[in-house]
């Protein structure tokens, strides 16, 4: 398990050598990418127009982030909800712990929240004597395995059914060891019955939110399993933990984004559940939490506003970019050693954790551009990755060998006469190296290329050489 983004390359190598992971990742195409393609094709309106609308909604919100968040707070407070502002991960963890302690909560159930992963909430609560239980099936599985999620919307995507069955056998030791755990449905119903008891005894529930609607002071949660509603409705205290960038002007805007989100994420027209959370239970209501808290986490987001990476904050966490990324499909999520993986991780992580820490993520891209093509809010992901590469280069953090190579090459490329002379020699030398087979199997200083492939030998003369020969002859 890689928890260090600086070890991306090594972790990626191990991931590539894992045949089970290869099978699991092969399902990205059939499970997610195909579903999205079909959902977009079925969409009755103009999908490109909807994307443009989504982009505009997100840009509007980001341009008025502060005032919209204050409007949200005001409107939620008017109904008895509390809003907490966390500048960084430590503040966010402390706020959550404080709320739990204040309410004497010891047994905690959680809906899936990437911000919770981002701030390392579970380990922190455990260290403080509180044991949170994840209730999203995938998240529950990875929690039992003491792993982080490997995919933004499908935390256990890297696992096979058999691995899940084994995990349940190690963990649910009070159940009959001879029970059958072959079918998916058996796994789901076992998790459901184990978690049911947890729901009933929980003191507090923690969930994320997909959107915050300022005008209504409402938090919107999109789920498929029903665990989100149980987590937020059954316990006395509900904490919504989310990033400040989730704000939009109103529920109408959220509804547009919802259309984009479910189709882009799972290929659904709509998710099984869309919960609009308006605050604590009001007098006369028979269900809902008595205490309702929203913890708004900045943790590096606001400092991206006004920079070249700002557009990354449009993200609605659908994971379409992961599902269409050939690099993610090769190494999976854990290789990244970070909460956010794939193209969105590559564009976001250097902003959140620094260019040095996350330097591999924006570099590990061919800039093939499929991520930007499928992004429902039109984030120019390769452009932002390139921005981080430029920051890395400008601050002297790029690998020395690469900087030397690029500088040497640029020296020649800026001097055409030198360049031509050098290319002329190189073409001849390489042709000779290629020999009768026409293939070069290795060359000094180019280990990266020759580690996995040969180099087809050149024809022997450069184009410019032949072009001048031809023109001289014609004269």
């Amino acid at each position: 398990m890689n928890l260090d983004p600086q070890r991306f390359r090594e972790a990626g190598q191990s991931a590539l050598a894992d045949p089970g992971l290869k099978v699991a990742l092969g399902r990205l195409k059939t499970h997610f990418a195909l579903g999205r393609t079909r959902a977009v094709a079925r969409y009755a309106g103009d999908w490109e127009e909807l994307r443009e609308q989504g982009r505009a909604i997100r840009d509007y919100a980001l341009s008025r982030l502060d005032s919209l968040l204050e409007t949200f707070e005001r409107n939620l407070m008017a109904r008895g909800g509390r809003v907490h502002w966390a500048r960084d991960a430590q503040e966010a963890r402390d706020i959550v712990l404080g709320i739990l302690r204040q309410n004497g909560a010891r047994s905690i159930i959680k809906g899936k929240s990437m911000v919770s992963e981002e701030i390392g909430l579970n380990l922190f609560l455990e260290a403080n004597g509180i044991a949170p239980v994840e209730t999203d099936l995938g998240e529950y599985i990875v929690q039992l395995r003491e792993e982080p999620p490997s995919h933004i919307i499908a935390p256990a995507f890297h696992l096979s059914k058999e691995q899940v069955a084994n995990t349940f056998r190690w963990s649910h030791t009070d159940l009959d060891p001879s029970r059958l755990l072959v079918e998916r449905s058996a796994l789901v119903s076992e998790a459901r019955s184990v978690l049911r008891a947890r729901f009933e005894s929980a003191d507090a529930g923690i969930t994320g939110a997909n959107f915050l609607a300022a005008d209504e002071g409402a938090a919107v949660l999109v789920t498929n399993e029903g665990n989100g509603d149980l987590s937020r409705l059954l316990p006395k205290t509900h904490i919504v933990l989310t990033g400040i960038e989730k704000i939009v002007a109103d529920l109408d805007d959220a509804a547009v984004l919802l259309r984009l989100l479910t189709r882009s994420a799972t290929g659904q027209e709509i998710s099984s559940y869309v919960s609009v959370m308006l605050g604590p239970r009001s007098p006369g209501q028979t269900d809902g939490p008595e205490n309702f808290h929203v913890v708004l986490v900045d943790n590096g987001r606001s400092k991206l506003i006004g920079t070249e990476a700002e557009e990354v904050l449009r993200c609605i966490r659908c994971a379409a970019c992961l599902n269409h990324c050939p690099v993610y499909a090769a190494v999976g999520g854990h290789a990244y050693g970070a909460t956010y993986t794939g193209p969105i991780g590559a564009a976001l992580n250097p902003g959140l954790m620094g260019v040095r820490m996350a330097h591999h993520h924006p570099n590990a891209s061919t800039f093939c551009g499929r991520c930007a093509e499928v992004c429902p809010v039109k984030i120019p992901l390769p452009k932002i990755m390139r921005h981080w590469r430029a920051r890395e280069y400008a601050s002297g953090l790029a690998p020395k060998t690469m900087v030397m190579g690029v500088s040497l090459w640029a020296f020649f490329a800026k001097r055409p006469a030198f360049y031509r002379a050098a290319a002329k020699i190189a073409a001849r030398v390489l042709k000779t190296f290629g020999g009768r087979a026409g293939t070069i199997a290795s060359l000094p200083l180019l280990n990266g290329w020759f580690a996995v492939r040969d180099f087809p030998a050149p024809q022997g003369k450069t184009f410019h050489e032949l072009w001048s020969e031809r023109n001289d002859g014609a004269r």
Partner: protein
Amino acid sequence: MIARPKVGLFVTCLVDLVRPQIGFAAIKLLERAGCDVGVPVQTCCGQPAWNSGADRHAADLARRVIDAFEPFDYVVAPSGSCAGMIKRHYPEIFEGDAAYGSKTRALAEKTHELLSFLVNVRGMQDVVAECSGLRACYHDSCSSLREMDVTDEPRDLLSSVRGLELAELNEPEVCCGFGGLFSVKYPEISERMADDKIADMQSTGATLVLGADLGCLLHLKGRMQRNGIAMEVRHIAEVLAGMTDDPPLGAADT
């Protein structure tokens, strides 16, 4: 349509070094399409620097290209990647630049990938070429596909090559794993992507792989050579121009 436009050929540094024949094939096609072709002094478009984040080097190289190609009616490159660099990324480099901003936009406006230029600007519908009894597949480069919007043009022209049977890949839109310096920085990931692409190519029953970006082709052919896979690889311009007498990429002279 300009009757006899002056086209500046952007040869590309890889074609210059590795396979000049692609440049001559491009010239033959452009001349057949009624163009006067010139080759101004040039080295590289600067994309390796730009993608490495070496912005100053990229800008230095871009300025040279912008100046050198200013006199031409069009700039044409036998590569979606280099054409994409000039058309899509030069304007990013010089955004808000008083001296080069407008010159850059003018250059971007008249820059084309070879096949797209032949079909969409020059109205070419067919070629005079023969490639008897060969089953080929066409590899779309990501930059041709997504930066230059080239999809049908190569297929339309290939369909007019006599004797050539064209097979489609299952996943033509998936990257082959070249990605310039990516192929050197993350060889193992690049390897997996190449192997997936090559497997897709083999599954079509094709014996000839055609593409419009030499970078992808060197990477794929190099991987085939390493694994002893005997598919022939050529730039599409060679086939369209009827210049297939020379051995394919990475095969020695006989």
